[in-house]
C-alpha cells in the first residue's frame, strides 16, 4: 500500500474520504459493503482499516454493518520512525499538523456539515408525532449504549485496540431507562448542536485519542504521544483541550505500517447496534456470516446453534422477506434469544426451536445448501463451496460434522 508522501482528506466536491476500523479478516466484507451501500470509490485497505471516498450522508454511513468505527480521514502517511531520538520523533509528530493544517480544517468542516445535515433531517422528522414516539424508543436504547460505551472509551483511550477485550466488556444490558430517557434525548440532541455551534473555530474543545502498536509502542507510551499532538494542536489552532466532554475528538493510530489521523464521525461505534439488546457473537462478524449465506427473498434460513440469535437478528434486519428459524439446545439461550427478538421487534420474523444437533434430525427432508467459506487466516480446508443435501436428511448432523472437522481435526473439506 505505497503512498506518495501523505494523503490529506479530500474536499466535499468529489465526496469525503473516510476510514473504518474493522476486525481482522473482515476487511474484505467491509470493502464489498462500502462499494455496494455507499457507492464508494478509491477503496483500499491496510490491515485493520479500510479507506474509501463517498458522497453519502450520515444516514447511509450509519448503516455500515461490518465496520467497528467510522472516521473522517485527516491524514494518512508513512509510519513514524521510532528508532530516532525523542526530540526528532516529536518533531515528526508536530509536522503532522504544521505541514498541512488545511487538511485538518477541511475535515472538521466536512464533519460539521454532515452533522448539520443530519440534524436538519432529524428536526423535520420530529414534527411527525408518531415518529417522535418511535425515536424516543430508539434513542433510549442508543443512548443507554452510548453512555456505557463512552465510559469504556475513556478507559480504553490510551490502550491498544484489542477486539477480544471489547467483546468481554461489551455485555450491554437494558436498564430501566424510562426516567433517564428525557434527559438522554436532550443530551443526544445537544451533542449534535454542540458540534455545530462553533461559529468561531476558536471555540472548539478537543481531546486526542492516541493508539500505538508495533515498535513505536515499545519506545513511547500512547499518553506521551497523545500529549505531544495535543500541545501542537493547541499551539497551532488555538483550541482548548477538554478531556471530559470535548466537542471534537481526534483519533491517531501509529504503527509499523502507517500513521493515520482522523475524526470519529459517531461517538458510538457502528458495531454497537441499537436493535441488539444482549449481544452474543460480535455483531460485525454475525452480519458477515449472514452475508455469506447469500440470502435471497423467500429463502428459508436456519441457524442450528443460534445462541442468543445474533446472526439471525443481523440477517433479519438486512434481508427481511425471509423465513428464519433459530434452534438451540439450551433453554436459557432460547429465552435470551426471545428477549432479543422482542427488543428488536423481530418476533414475527424469526421462529425458535429447541433442538440438539447431535440428536437425530427433526427436519423433514428438504433440499438445502450449506455454504462454507474459509476466512483468511484459517490454515486448512478448501476456500469455499457448498454442501448439498441428499435424500436422507441428516442436515443438522452434517453441519455439526463439518464444523467439527474444520475446527478440531483440521481435515481438508472436499
Amino acid at each position, binding site marked *: 500500500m505505497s503512498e506518495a508522501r501523505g494523503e490529506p482528506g479530500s474536499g466535499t466536491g468529489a465526496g469525503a474520504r473516510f476510514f473504518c476500523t474493522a476486525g481482522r479478516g473482515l476487511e474484505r466484507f467491509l470493502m464489498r459493503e462500502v462499494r455496494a451501500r455507499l457507492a464508494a470509490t478509491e477503496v483500499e485497505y491496510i490491515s485493520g482499516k479500510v479507506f474509501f471516498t463517498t458522497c453519502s450522508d450520515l444516514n447511509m454511513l450509519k448503516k455500515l454493518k461490518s465496520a467497528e468505527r467510522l472516521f473522517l480521514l485527516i491524514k494518512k502517511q508513512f509510519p513514524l520512525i521510532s528508532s530516532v531520538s525523542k526530540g526528532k520523533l516529536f518533531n515528526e509528530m508536530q509536522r503532522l499538523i504544521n505541514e498541512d493544517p488545511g487538511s485538518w480544517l477541511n475535515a472538521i468542516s466536512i464533519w460539521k456539515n454532515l452533522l448539520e445535515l443530519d440534524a436538519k433531517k432529524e428536526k423535520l422528522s420530529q414534527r411527525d408525532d408518531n415518529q417522535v414516539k418511535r425515536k424516543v424508543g430508539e434513542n433510549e436504547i442508543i443512548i443507554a449504549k452510548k453512555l456505557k460505551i463512552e465510559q469504556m472509551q475513556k478507559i480504553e483511550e490510551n490502550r491498544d485496540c484489542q477486539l477480544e477485550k471489547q467483546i468481554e466488556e461489551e455485555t450491554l444490558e437494558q436498564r430501566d431507562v424510562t426516567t433517564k430517557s428525557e434527559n438522554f434525548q436532550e443530551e443526544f440532541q445537544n451533542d449534535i448542536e454542540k458540534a455545530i455551534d462553533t461559529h468561531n473555530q476558536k471555540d472548539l474543545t478537543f481531546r486526542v485519542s492516541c493508539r500505538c502498536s508495533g515498535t513505536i509502542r515499545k519506545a513511547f507510551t500512547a499518553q506521551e504521544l497523545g500529549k505531544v499532538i495535543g500541545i501542537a494542536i493547541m499551539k497551532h489552532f488555538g483550541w482548548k483541550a477538554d478531556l471530559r466532554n470535548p466537542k471534537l475528538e481526534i483519533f491517531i493510530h501509529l504503527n509499523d505500517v502507517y500513521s493515520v489521523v482522523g475524526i470519529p464521525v459517531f461517538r458510538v461505534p457502528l458495531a454497537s447496534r441499537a436493535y441488539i439488546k444482549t449481544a452474543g457473537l460480535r455483531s460485525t462478524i454475525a452480519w458477515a456470516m449472514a452475508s455469506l449465506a447469500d440470502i435471497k427473498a423467500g429463502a428459508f434460513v436456519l441457524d442450528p446453534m443460534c445462541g442468543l440469535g445474533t446472526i439471525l437478528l443481523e440477517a433479519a434486519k438486512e434481508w427481511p*422477506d425471509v423465513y428464519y428459524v433459530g434452534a438451540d439446545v439450551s433453554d436459557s439461550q432460547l429465552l435470551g434469544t426471545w428477549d432479543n427478538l422482542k427488543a428488536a421487534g423481530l418476533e414475527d420474523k424469526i421462529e425458535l*426451536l429447541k433442538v440438539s444437533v447431535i*440428536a437425530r434430525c*427433526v427436519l423433514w427432508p428438504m433440499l438445502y445448501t450449506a455454504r462454507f467459506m474459509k476466512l483468511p487466516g484459517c490454515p486448512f480446508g478448501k476456500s469455499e463451496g457448498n454442501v448439498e443435501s441428499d435424500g436422507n436428511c441428516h442436515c443438522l448432523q452434517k453441519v455439526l460434522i463439518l464444523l467439527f472437522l474444520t475446527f478440531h481435526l483440521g481435515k481438508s473439506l472436499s
Partner: protein
Amino acid sequence: MRLLTHNFLKCNEENCTGGYPLQIKLDDTSSENVKILEQDFNKEFVKNVLSKVDYDVLYNTAKQFGISLLFSYTSQHLEDEGFLNSIHHALFKIHIMEGSLICPQCHVSFPIKDGIPNMLKGN
C-alpha cells in the same frame, strides 16, 4: 410455533420411520394456548413459501384450527389475493403457545412451551 414450522418438523426417535406429520395437541389447562398475531402480508413471500410447504399437511392442520383452505389449488389461485391471504393466515398468524406434538407412529410427545417446541424430549 407457527403452522409453517409444524410443516417441517418430524419425529426423531430411534427406529421411527413414519414420524411425519406430527399431531398437534393443545394444552387445555392453559388459558392462552393459541394466539393469533398480526403479520404484514407480502404476496411474493407467501407464494414463495407456499411452493415449499407440504400442502396436504397444511390443509389438514389448518382444519384443526377452524381454517378451511381450498383442498387443492392451481396456478390461477396463486394470483388470487383472497386465497393467498387465507394461506398467509394459516401459515403465519396462528401461533401455538402451549401444547405438544405427538408422533403418529411411536406416540412420542414433544412439548411446546411459550411457543417453542422442545424437540429434545423424545420420551
